[in-house]
């Protein structure tokens, strides 16, 4: 028998082979029995998002920006926050304080990022507008950040919204509290305009309780959100606090923001430690005061004002008199002429956890001044709610019956500075969002507590509005926050943070009310964007695919999701280590985790 040669055929039957030649593949070798763990692909929440009162998907925005999609990144911000231009300038940035990058080198300049997006990204209001119109009419009292935020989100859902604003201009504290050099009013006007373009009507110069009653509004509107803010000043409460030359801080700033440029004295003392006090001092400098000092009863560490604003105080030649409080005001020629202060020391913590200042006996000292500005607190002017039956707290705050902003009266909700709590812009915006959720649930007969929990971020008080609206859209786990020890820093290089620069020197700054801080340049922003870990958000780095030894990572190109070949994965866990941002994690093989 002569073995006939065949030319280059693939034999059907392997008995024709005369040496070991394999045409079959190895896909039939199942590895499931070998492993004890299996990977899961689950996007999670970044700590910045968890810390943000507004619950902005910051990591997603950074991811979009990293691809050059700045408009999309801005859109991500505006899904939760209608005022990025404001927050990008004045927010107290809790996001940066919990940024994972701070444990590697320095926190990302997230506030500058928000500002950059609002400065350079394009807003398409048509995209934000609702496709359907709801029949219900909602009334909002107050056009500060809480009221604006609620109106924006309600309008996006198709509700007809009317804001009642007592002042001639909308904006609340944004307009009347924060000076121009920190927040140019043009920016505020632009962002309010976007809200108006959504169909929100703002009736300025209408004071509820004087020009219209709350009951009237209650009859005409299906739901009501009270966000009147806290614009009442607090007296110093010492002898001489009614003397001429003693100004109240909130009123002082309001007048300046209304355009007044009256000169203040040469030697000004500002009492207080919050941003209002800082702003009063910096405004005083701009109005020609030569000697300006801030007198604060606790130490620097306890000052509520933001660190960078405290730094600008020193840069602009304002003195800080810490651990001191006024005892009495001294007058001469029927005008305040000096302030007698007492030294303080820190005692036991009070209800808020901050150490109480305790006067040091016999430590009086006198400072000659010609103007005193009291910035020691803000209270709401909320008498107008009592006819409706809403109760007020001792300090005049509207009492809410749940964390959702509900009050004792069905259909009436309250939020922002008028209910107390944290007095920051971001928190006010967050309470406006919360009110929207509560109002929608109220009108649709849904359980707002359940709705909140479903969209809740981490274990805090913020929630994702997008998740509330479209529960099935985004598949990331809002409850799991990425800790730093789950970031694989071997895939990143250390570098310094790009901080904001100032337009000019402090000496020049105090000569005008022009904006002091500059926005980041494109290069600086690109650098920050690349520094951002994008915790918990998949950026298609494909480390999982590159590092999987078992060729067991699957991909859905259209949806941008990754999965695992459960027949061939050996459960080594490399994918969970190679994923630098904690999206891939190993779970026990037998756990009933829905695999994709």
């Amino acid at each position: 028998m002569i073995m006939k040669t065949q030319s280059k055929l693939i034999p059907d039957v392997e008995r024709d082979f005369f040496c070991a030649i394999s045409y079959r593949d190895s896909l039939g070798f199942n590895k499931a029995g070998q492993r004890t763990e299996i990977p899961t692909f689950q996007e999670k929440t970044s700590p910045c998002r968890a810390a943000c009162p507004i619950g902005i998907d910051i990591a997603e925005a950074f991811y979009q920006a990293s691809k050059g999609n700045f408009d999309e990144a801005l859109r991500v911000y505006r899904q939760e926050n209608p005022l990025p231009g404001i927050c990008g300038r004045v927010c107290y940035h809790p996001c940066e304080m919990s940024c994972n990058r701070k444990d590697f080198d320095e926190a990302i300049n997230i506030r500058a990022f928000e500002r950059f997006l609002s400065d350079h990204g394009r807003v398409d209001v048509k995209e934000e507008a609702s496709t359907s119109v709801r029949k219900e009419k909602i009334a909002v009292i107050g056009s500060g950040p809480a009221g604006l935020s609620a109106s924006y989100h309600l309008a996006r859902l198709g509700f007809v919204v009317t804001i009642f604003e007592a002042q001639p201009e909308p904006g609340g504290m944004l307009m009347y509290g924060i000076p121009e050099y920190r927040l140019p009013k043009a920016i505020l006007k632009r962002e309010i305009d976007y809200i108006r373009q959504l169909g929100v009507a703002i009736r300025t110069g209408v004071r509820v309780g004087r020009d219209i009653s709350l009951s009237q509004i209650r009859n005409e509107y299906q739901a009501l959100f009270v966000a009147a803010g806290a614009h009442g000043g607090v007296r110093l409460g010492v002898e001489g606090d009614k003397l001429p030359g003693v100004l109240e801080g909130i009123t002082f700033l309001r007048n300046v923001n209304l355009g007044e440029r009256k000169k203040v004295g040469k030697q000004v003392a500002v009492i207080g430690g919050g941003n209002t006090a800082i702003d009063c001092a910096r405004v005083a400098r701009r109005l020609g005061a030569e000697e300006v000092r801030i007198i604060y009863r606790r130490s620097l560490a306890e000052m509520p004002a933001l660190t960078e604003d405290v730094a600008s105080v020193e840069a602009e030649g304002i003195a800080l008199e810490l651990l001191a409080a006024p005892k009495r005001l001294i007058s001469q020629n029927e005008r305040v002429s000096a302030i007698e202060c007492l030294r303080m020391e820190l005692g036991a913590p009070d209800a808020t956890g901050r150490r109480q200042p305790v006067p040091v006996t016999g430590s009086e000292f006198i400072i000659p001044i010609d103007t005193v500005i009291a910035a020691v607190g803000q209270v709401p002017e909320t008498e107008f709610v009592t006819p409706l039956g809403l109760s007020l707290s001792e300090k005049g705050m509207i009492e809410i019956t749940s964390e959702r902003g509900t009050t004792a009266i069905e259909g009436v909700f309250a939020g922002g500075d008028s209910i107390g709590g944290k007095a920051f812009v971001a928190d006010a915006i967050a309470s406006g969002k919360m009110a929207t959720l509560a109002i929608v649930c109220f009108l649709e007969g849904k359980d707002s507590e359940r709705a909140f929990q479903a969209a809740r971020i981490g274990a805090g008080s913020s929630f994702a509005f997008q998740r509330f609206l479209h529960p099935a859209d985004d598949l990331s786990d809002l409850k799991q926050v990425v800790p730093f020890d789950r970031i694989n820093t071997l895939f990143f290089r250390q570098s310094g943070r790009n901080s904001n620069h100032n337009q000019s020197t402090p000496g020049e700054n105090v000569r005008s009310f022009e904006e002091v801080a500059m926005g980041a340049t494109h290069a600086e922003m690109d650098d920050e964007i690349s520094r951002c870990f994008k915790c918990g958000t998949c950026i298609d780095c494909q480390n999982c695919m590159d590092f999987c030894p078992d060729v067991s990572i699957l991909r859905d190109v259209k949806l941008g999701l990754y999965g695992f070949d459960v027949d061939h994965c050996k459960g080594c866990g490399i994918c969970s280590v190679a994923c630098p941002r904690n999206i891939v994690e190993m779970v026990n093989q037998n756990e009933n985790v829905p695999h994709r």
Partner: protein
Amino acid sequence: MSLVHDGSNNLHPGHLACPGCGEVIGLKLVLQAVGKKTIAVVIPGCLGIIIGPYPFSTFKIPFYHTAFETAAATAAGISNALSAKGDEETTVIALTGDGGTSDIGFQSLSGAADRNENVIYCCFDNEAYMNTGVQVSSSTPELAWTMTTPVGKTGRKKNMVEIMAAHNIPYAATACSCFPDDLRTKIMTAKKIKGTKYIHILSPCPTGWRFPESLTPNIGRLAVETDCFPLYEIRNGAEVKITYEPRHLPIENYLLAQGRFKHVTKDDIAKITKAVDRSWKELKRRESGGSCTC
């Protein structure tokens, strides 16, 4: 939802590598970069098992599993046969380990390089004879534990890439399976060059280096970031180009993460740090043009 495998892979799942194997990561990346118009040569070692048992092949390209010491000669035979047939397009790639390259296969490799045979020669260096149970090779680093150097190896690691560069081959390079883009780029560079191309790929081995199998990516990154294994290219025996700027992390981060080095002392670490620093400075000097081409 449609979850599918990446079509650019030329390695099937279902192979027999240990879980966490750093070598098969490198193999996957190499096969991905080299493309389908390729014939591979494989020798005994971990790769000899990873290819699968007859009649199942884990490769999507043809391969021939030849005798241990013959990878280079075998690859050269294929390359010459293809030329004789008029085929200058198909790439021939040898996929070997450190044992089959720096020990038993050294002669064959040196001969092929001397003749500038047109093959890409990849050495997947897991720093010992791992497939047979962790025995020492000339590529095992100093002080490392193996089954045949239970108190730690006394000799140093043979510097294969420099030896190969001394043959004046057009392209020699180091790479690491935990730097995927760098490795793929080097394979694609090699594909475009005619002659002998040698790529030495550090492949962390959880089984033999004694570390948890999920940490392979970190070990590989640390090897490079601590300067213990610089990533660079040498063209025509002289032009040095460093392809990754490491962070110069302390070598303890790398050594003490592996059980095979758990017995090293502070003195050892100081000595190794000094040696590694010196090597890095020398490499930098050569890159900046300090080498003589006379």
